[in-house]
């Protein structure tokens, strides 16, 4: 056998092994469970008339920067496990491309975190995965522990159609464990703006001590108010976090007031033109931030405390 023949045989065996691995990973509903098998499925999703450039690749936290440069830190902060990437190019015009990235974030909460942090308000929502939207001919989807980004070279109807087909195919073969995201159900629904919930694993609101924090926008009359909520290990930890918040307000703002309304204890922080109001409820720390009207800030914080949906 010639060396070319041997090489061809090795490649065939490799493809066969990958295919077997992929098939073995397919769940009851024909959905992929293990992200190491994704390259095969991704290659099989190549749009008609297009070809996969080079091959589908996978990146880990150690080398993600090779693909997305400085943006890697964003995904690492949410404990990314693996990213599967493929570039499809039009067979007739190779400068036309569609890039597909599938981030396996390990948990639905982390996947929601990156999806929500990147989501822009006012984009066209789609009925794919747990949440999704289209921006031009680019598609962004959250499904279970996966975050999917499809970026197109253009915005034409053709790109939109191909992108949507690809989004549909990829979403179909990814598994959703169904594990729920705590903050989405804990934050009160009344007056909550659709798709406004975000999850920040670190540095929420620019504060180095605020981790694992959800934020959401609420409409209160004509005013939009941003609320936040974070679950700590214990009530003691939550109390310590409130103290830290007050210290931040004293350092960068004008001062703080401690208030009580019935059984609700609050710290009102005058940030110089705007107000933050913070509360503790068991292991939770929550509040509102950047509100111009102090009395509104206090009222909404109390409402939030009362309406938190705890299991």
């Amino acid at each position: 056998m010639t060396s070319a023949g041997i090489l061809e045989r090795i490649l065939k065996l490799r493809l066969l092994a990958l295919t077997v691995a992929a098939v073995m990973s397919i769940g009851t509903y024909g959905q992929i469970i293990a992200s190491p098998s994704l390259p095969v499925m991704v290659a099989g999703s190549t749009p008609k008339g297009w070809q996969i450039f080079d091959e589908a690749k996978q990146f880990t936290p150690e080398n993600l920067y090779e693909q997305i440069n400085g943006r890697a830190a964003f995904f690492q902060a949410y404990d990314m496990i693996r990213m599967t990437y493929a570039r499809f190019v039009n067979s007739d015009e190779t400068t036309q491309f569609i890039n597909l990235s599938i981030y396996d974030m390990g948990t639905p909460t982390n996947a929601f975190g990156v999806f929500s942090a990147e989501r822009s308000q006012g984009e066209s929502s789609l009925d794919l995965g747990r949440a999704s939207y289209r921006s031009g001919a680019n598609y962004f989807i959250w499904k279970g522990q996966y975050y999917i980004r499809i970026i197109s070279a253009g915005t034409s109807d053709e790109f939109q159609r191909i992108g949507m087909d690809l989004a549909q195919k990829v979403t179909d073969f990814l598994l959703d464990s169904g594990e729920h995201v705590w903050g989405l159900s804990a934050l009160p629904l009344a007056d909550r703006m659709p798709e406004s919930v975000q999850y920040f694993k670190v540095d929420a609101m620019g504060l180095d001590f605020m981790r694992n924090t959800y934020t959401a926008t609420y409409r209160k009359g004509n005013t939009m108010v941003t609320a936040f909520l974070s679950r700590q290990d214990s009530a003691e930890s939550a109390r310590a976090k409130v103290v830290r918040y007050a210290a931040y307000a004293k350092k960068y703002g004008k001062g703080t007031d401690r208030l009580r309304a019935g059984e609700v204890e609050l710290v009102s922080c005058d940030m110089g033109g705007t107000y933050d109001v913070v509360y503790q409820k068991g292991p939770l720390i929550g509040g509102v931030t950047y509100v111009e009207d102090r009395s509104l800030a206090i009222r909404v914080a109390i409402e939030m405390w009362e309406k938190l949906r705890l299991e």
Partner: protein
Amino acid sequence: MIKKIKNRDSFDRREFIKIVATAAFSGPILLSAAYSKSNESIRTKESIHRNEQPTMTYRKLGRTGFLSSRLVFGCGAALTGGKAARLLERAFEAGINHFDVGSDIYYKGSERNLAPFLKNHRDQVWVVSKAPAIVYTKSGDSITLEQAKSAAKYWTGLMDASLKDLQTDYVDAYYLMAVDNPSLVRSEEVYNAFIKAKAAGKVGHFGLSTHKNAQKVLEAAIETGWYDLAMIGITPAGWYDWSTKSLAQDTSTLVELQGLLKRATEAGIGLVGMKTVRYLAPFWSLGKGDPSAFDKVYGEKLKSSSFSPFQRGYAYVLQHGIDVVNADMQNFKHLEENIIAAATADRYFS
């Protein structure tokens, strides 16, 4: 009924800038004095002045004439999701007047999250955005005319999207982002796309950012004479290569690169440093986790300063041919540290 538990804490307003100055020195007066000394020489008739404060130092950026704060607020990662939006006003109070962001295609949502701040301060700050002119080639390959046309069209489309997301009709500069191919730098197709955008009143100045093959990219930029600004991956120990997260192979040190940086300056290019201290950062922040990696190039005065390793890195490059440094600041602590470093860098060099 809401009851006050305790009397209001009787704190005077501890202005952020005062905190910064106090942390760095015995008081803000020293910093004001440093400001006067550092900035008087650069006040010329043709300079563009925006939001200059005594808590910051400034440097003219090449032929743009703009007196930029020596610390540039890197908004790209910080404003994804809007989490650090609150830092913008604090940065502004401290005299930062240069805000660098990136296309939605890369830094998703950052431009939109910068827009509310710009609504209040657009005329008081210098705003730069950037986008990749995507060409899939190796760094050393020459791009084809077709590739150049496609890249120019893509870049122009992203520039228009940037303006829309920033809710402004003009940015002070727009960069070719993450360029590693000198032939793209020399592409007339791309340059003409910039000229058209400039003629349409969308952008003032042309620039590029590079952190791979950066020396050759900068040399190409100098050669063309087209570029007003270059944001380069540079450290105290030399070029930073983002593709390896390390110092570029066989890099000259920053001291040894002074000739090239001087040529860039003489060509009218304002030099913006980036990735300056990334190498020192922990792994989760894409660094190598070795805070002492640059100590060998520092003098005793800087080494014995109370600066953190990150502050030392910024201070060093600002004293070695780099006009301003771009820093990704995600929380108040980062902001505070970086302002101190940028505002006082000259104290550690004689």
